[in-house]
């Protein structure tokens, strides 16, 4: 297969899921003729019809709330939220309904709903278009939360999320949509590729463990590369699954390196880094040679775009944390 971008890979993954299971539906604002504002659903309405690729009225609670009803009826709805900052009108339906119905029904009703959210900043957008809401979902039992970081993962993870019988918040790093390309390997299957709710070591190293997910994986890898130039060997883990967390490989890594740094775009305060740091500290207490350090968005609202480059964690801020950790 030709090399594709993340947006194209997701499009291909959605198409595959729809071909494989007639119960899979796409719904959201502008997902039809327009193919979504990022074109992730491009061409799907044309091929699968208006009954399976549904342009919804402009109301996010309505989108997720009707998805719940469709799921009870046996469908597998995949909702697109146009931008991260617009998921909050649906927050009640997500945390009080989608997350709880399996539990409420003593397991009798499954909720195979996927909520796709383009997330993160760096695209020069206006307010509400660059948020990182993952912690607000990961804190909620009953939801599963994943973030892809590259086209290959995007292709497989979206299919795995759709196949999962639990609700999945599926985070897509929007600034990667049309960036790097990668080749999809069609000899693999949903079963043969890495399971959805697992993390992955994406670069081996011995001096420090660097954790990231979504848009920051690229930054983490670049940082590791730069550090290598200074003779520092950094192991990079792409967390991929934010709830459940798969920290086994992380603990193993930290027991080896003694140093850990977590990076994300979300605000540091109560971000994923807090949980990861708390767990690593508990599990690797005697191995840590420095506290787990966190690099993230500052605890301010996401800034106007002319400041986002400074606001977002970047290679320099990651390396600064690496320095502080190793120099602790």
């Amino acid at each position, binding site marked *: 297969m030709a090399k594709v971008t993340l947006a194209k890979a997701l499009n291909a993954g959605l198409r595959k899921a729809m071909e494989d299971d007639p119960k899979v539906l796409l719904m959201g604002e502008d997902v039809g003729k327009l193919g979504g504002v990022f074109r992730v659903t491009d061409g799907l309405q044309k091929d699968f019809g208006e009954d399976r690729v549904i342009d919804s009225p402009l109301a996010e609670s*309505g989108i997720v*709330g009707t998805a*719940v*009803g469709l799921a*009870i009826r046996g469908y597998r709805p995949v909702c697109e939220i146009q931008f991260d900052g617009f998921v909050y009108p649906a927050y009640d339906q997500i945390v009080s309904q989608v997350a709880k119905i*399996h539990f409420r029904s003593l397991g009798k*009703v499954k909720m195979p709903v996927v909520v796709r959210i383009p997330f993160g900043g760096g695209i020069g957008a206006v307010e509400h278009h660059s948020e990182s809401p993952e912690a607000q979902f990961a804190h909620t039992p*009953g939801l*599963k939360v994943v973030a892809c970081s590259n086209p290959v993962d995007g292709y497989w993870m979206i299919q795995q999320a759709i196949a999962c019988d639990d609700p999945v918040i599926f985070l897509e790093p929007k600034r990667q949509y049309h960036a790097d390309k990668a080749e999809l390997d069609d000899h693999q299957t949903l079963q043969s590729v890495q399971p959805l709710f697992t993390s992955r070591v994406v670069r081996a190293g011995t001096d420090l463990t660097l954790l990231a997910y979504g848009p920051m994986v690229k930054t983490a890898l670049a940082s590791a590369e730069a550090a290598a130039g200074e003779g520092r060997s950094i192991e990079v883990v792409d967390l991929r699954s934010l709830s459940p967390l798969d920290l086994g490989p992380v603990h193993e890594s930290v027991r080896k390196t003694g140093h850990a740094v977590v990076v994300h775009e979300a605000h540091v305060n109560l971000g994923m880094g807090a949980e990861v740091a708390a767990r690593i500290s508990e599990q690797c207490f005697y191995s840590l040679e420095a506290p787990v350090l966190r690099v993230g968005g500052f605890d301010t609202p996401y800034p106007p775009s002319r400041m986002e480059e400074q606001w977002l964690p970047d290679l320099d801020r990651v390396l600064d944390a690496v320095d502080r950790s190793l120099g602790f």
Partner: protein
Amino acid sequence: MSDPTSAPAAEHGEAFARHQAAIADLKSAHLVQLLTPEGERVEHPEFSFDAGEGADEDETIRGFYRDMVLTRRIDTEATALQRHGELGIWAQLLGQEAAQIGSGRALRPQDFVFPTYREHGVAWCRDIDPLRLLGLFRGVDQGGWDPHDGNFGLYTIVIGAQTLHATGYAMGMQRDGVVGTGDPERDAAVVAYFGDGASSQGDVNEAFIFAASYNAPVVFFCQNNQWAISEPIERQSRIPLYQRALGFGFPGVRVDGNDVLATYAVAQAALQRARDGQGPTFVEAYTYRMGAHTTTDDPTRYRLSEDLETWKLKDPIQRVKAYLVRNGLAGQDFFDEVDDEAERLGEHLREGCRALPEPDPLSVFDLVYAEQTPELAEQRAGYAAYLDSFEMGAV
């Protein structure tokens, strides 16, 4: 602050005056009634009671009576159980029996119901063992019946959320090809129950929009019992609620919610309209919450006892009894039999409630996901070990 109804006529443009007139017209309630509070059958130009092909009308009405008496018994029994500390709380339906039985009996098996937390009468029509309702209010579970048996969704407590679920489910029916085929065994519809207070929630209004936009087969069945806890209906709407539908582009009807024949007839018509593929309908069952909001509420703080007295004269059960007696359609035997049945039901509830098995605290870990996570399995194991440590007398 001025009231719109008492405001001086606008000077600027007849349009507003015309609209005021339209609104005044909307304020007049066109109430569908087929059985008066005194138990007399009356005609309505547009709706009539039809028990259905091959059904015996008298038998059907006796059935409604029985359903309502038994439903009320569930309610009084549960209220008493709450007073005795067997339930944490109970949401009473006293006074709303006709609205629920009338609409509940208009359902076909293939229809699907999305209830609030007060639809005990509809649950009864869907053959949900009332003990399951007690389980929720006792706190042993959250209902936990299988919505796919009996096509009766779980009680939903977040006000209005279920109206969107209903709309989505109805969209699923459209996709399954069970709407507008003309086959009465196949065509199906959804009912979303909600209250007058719920009509103010964004979700409910979004449900109207989605249902209208997709022409989904859903009946929005609003029991306007005049109160949302302590707030009177006027806080939510200054015009009759059924008119809300008009602005969304589908019909609204106000029916006497204490008249089981009328609620049956109107619900039946609205359901059939939905099954036929003609889209959503809003039904406002105009009724009254004769009890407290729940067993923890104290209505004397906010409403006059006179109102209650007025509404007692409109009791949904008494009027059917009066009708049956007056027309010789049921004798003392029948009423005694129903009372006996109610007694037995009461006993079933009292005994069954106390016998409901206590839940296993470890079960919570198993019910979160369809596909258990290693994290949670570990948390479960840790907690199990912790509990064991007590049993072993280790601490």
